[in-house]
């Protein structure tokens, strides 16, 4: 079986184009996560896959068949809506049971599955309540429960965990992971803005930006080898620090001159034609280390110290105009605002992008 294929899918609302031609091949059983900035078209894409939004252009195939005109109910999908979309007049139980009732499942089966889902989502207490008497997170859980209860070929989740607290979020995330493991044949498409969710759940992540795909790949690949500046800055939190640089020497490793005046070698091969060109040098906050010696990448003044317990974020100003450079150092540090600190980083973990934003690293 071939799963889901999107061919040059487009969508426009009147004159506004929101999806500009998406090509994507999703294998059956794969867990795909869509990430991208707010408003980039994730929900729209998901809704098109569900059949809720008309496809303005391109083709969508499920299992090799064109489904552009197939109604949602025939696509074998379950969906968690970003805005919950609960049935306000039904209790939590009925909300979850609705799909199964429609499918004509037996009463016992319905009861069993609803209770199982409620258990997982800690909703058992609330089964008899109407949505209006639930908290935001509880509503969201009902929406998830509703999808879980059904047994679809494709699961669509639109930011399903955004209103949950950390613990529940982890728990539910693990449940979803388990689910996807148990139902190896079920394709999952998941929209999130949470890095951890994306990284932990995805077989592949699709990074969207303004209606087109920036990069598709397994989580670590995206993290380690972002194809372009957009992905580089989007994946990882806090975002990768980008420092303008000039290529001074090329070859198997490239040597750069950073704005600060310091040079740095990067383990990325570049063609000799690139010498002298401007480029963007990238280093992730968590790849920065405090250097005590002279072998440092750059030096800066601490503007803000954020101690999160586990790690400390240092905001370094004065290096790049406008934005501070952020360093994420494990543990709790004895650093104060105004301290001058030198940073170094592992050469292998550095990134380099050309002026168009494309990575110099071979894909």
């Amino acid at each position, binding site marked *: 079986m071939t799963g889901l294929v999107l061919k040059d899918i487009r969508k426009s609302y009147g004159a506004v184009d929101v999806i500009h031609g998406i090509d994507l091949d999703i294998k059956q059983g794969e867990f795909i996560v869509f990430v991208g900035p707010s408003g980039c078209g994730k929900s729209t894409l998901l809704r098109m896959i569900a059949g809720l939004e008309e496809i303005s252009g391109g083709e969508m195939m499920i299992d090799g068949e064109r489904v552009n005109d197939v109604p949602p*109910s025939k696509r074998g999908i379950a969906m968690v809506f970003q805005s919950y*979309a609960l049935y306000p007049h039904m209790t939590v139980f009925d909300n979850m049971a*609705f799909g199964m009732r429609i499918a004509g499942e037996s009463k016992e089966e319905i009861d069993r599955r609803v209770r199982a889902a409620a258990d997982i989502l800690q909703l058992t207490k609330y089964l008899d309540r109407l*949505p209006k008497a639930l908290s935001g997170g509880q509503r969201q859980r009902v929406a998830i429960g509703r999808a879980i209860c059904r047994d679809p070929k494709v699961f669509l989740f639109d930011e399903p965990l955004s209103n949950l607290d950390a613990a529940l979020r982890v728990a539910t995330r693990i449940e979803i992971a388990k689910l996807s493991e148990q139902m190896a044949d079920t394709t999952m498409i998941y929209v999130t803005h949470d890095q951890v969710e994306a990284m932990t759940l995805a077989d592949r992540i699709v990074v969207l930006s303004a209606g087109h795909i920036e990069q598709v790949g397994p989580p670590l690949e995206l993290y380690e080898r972002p194809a372009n500046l957009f992905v580089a800055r989007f994946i990882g939190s806090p975002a990768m620090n980008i420092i303008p640089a000039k290529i001074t020497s090329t070859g198997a490793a490239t040597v750069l001159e950073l704005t600060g005046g310091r040079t740095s070698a990067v383990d990325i091969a570049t063609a000799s034609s690139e010498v002298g060109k401007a480029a963007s040098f990238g280093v992730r906050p968590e790849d920065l280390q405090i250097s005590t010696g002279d072998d440092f990448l750059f030096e800066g003044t601490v503007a803000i110290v954020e101690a999160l317990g586990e790690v400390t974020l240092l905001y370094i100003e004065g290096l790049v105009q406008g934005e501070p450079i952020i360093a994420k150092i494990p543990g709790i540090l004895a650093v104060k605002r105004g301290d001058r600190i030198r940073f170094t980083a592992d050469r292998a973990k550095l990134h380099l992008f050309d002026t168009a934003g494309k990575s110099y690293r071979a894909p």
Partner: protein
Amino acid sequence: MIATSRSPLIFVVHLSVLLLVALWTLPTAGLLISSLRDKDQLAVSGWWTALSTSSQNLTGRAAAPEAQVERDGKFVISGNLLEGDDAKVSAFGFRPLQPTAFEAGTAADIGDGQTLTVKEDGSYEIVSPTRMEGTRGQRIFYTAAVPSRFTLDNYREVLNAEGIGASFINSLTVAIPATIIPILVAAFCAYALAWMPFPGRAILIAVIVGLLVVPLQMSLIPLLRLYNGVGAFFGVPAKTYVGIWLAHMGFGLPLAVYLLRNYMAGLPREILESARVDGASDFDIFVKIILPLSFPALASFAIFQFLWTWNDLLVAMVFLGAGNEELVLTGRLVNLLGSRGGNWEILTASAFITIIVPLVVFFSLQRYLVRGLLAGSVKGG
């Protein structure tokens, strides 16, 4: 609810509603009070005067001369003008043009040596030196302070009218299906017009709005002709309950569809979508999602459709007939008024008798006009 109920504005709200309610009920209050009044009073004094003691000029008649008794060589007719009413006579007279010529208690000389005395309590006495002649008693005009007096006679008369019970049932037989059927039919149609895409939808909506304007009177003759034709063709009576249900349905549909469609179109789209994703067909969606969520609109339309069919006379007369067996309540009550439609006291009472059922319907359906039916379903603007 927002915890603002104690704001000072609330008094303004109370006051304005009170004012509006007063304005709106005042005319009806007139009718209500009138329905409880004596029929002769209706045309003589304003209904609001019935609420308080009022001074009225009344006419009474003494007992006929045959009731006279001889007392101390004089002939005396006595009795009471008020006949147990709790009124107080202040003045009296015996000529129509001077009805208040004498104060209560004084003796009036009414000629031929006769005197008439009327006391405050309404008791009168005519004393004559000679035997009185004639068959009719003396007219006595008097002014009395009459306290408010109400009677249920009008209601009794209406409720005891022959055939009223049967007509009541006839009316229900007409009104209930004529309310439910169009709602059902209209709801399906409204759903299709609101949420099912098909070509020509906008035009169809407009046509239905346009049909609202068709005057009922224009349709009666062609339709009755059609009914007669159909009836003759199938050898069934032309005037049946089914016929009138359908007629009421036809006339009520445009409004029903228009109202319901407007309401349904306003339901959050995500809920329908999620049902669609859950595998529900349009039919399921309609029955299980749209219908329950449209309850406020259904209830409001039901109130009106019921009301119209209940109060209707014309359609019932034409499509059900005016005979005794099939006469609806409105028809029965109108018939009570007599050929010249005179009896207001009947009219007032029957107006209140007919209003009860629609009010009950209104009251019982009002609770479906609920707040926050959609609360908690979707998030967003």
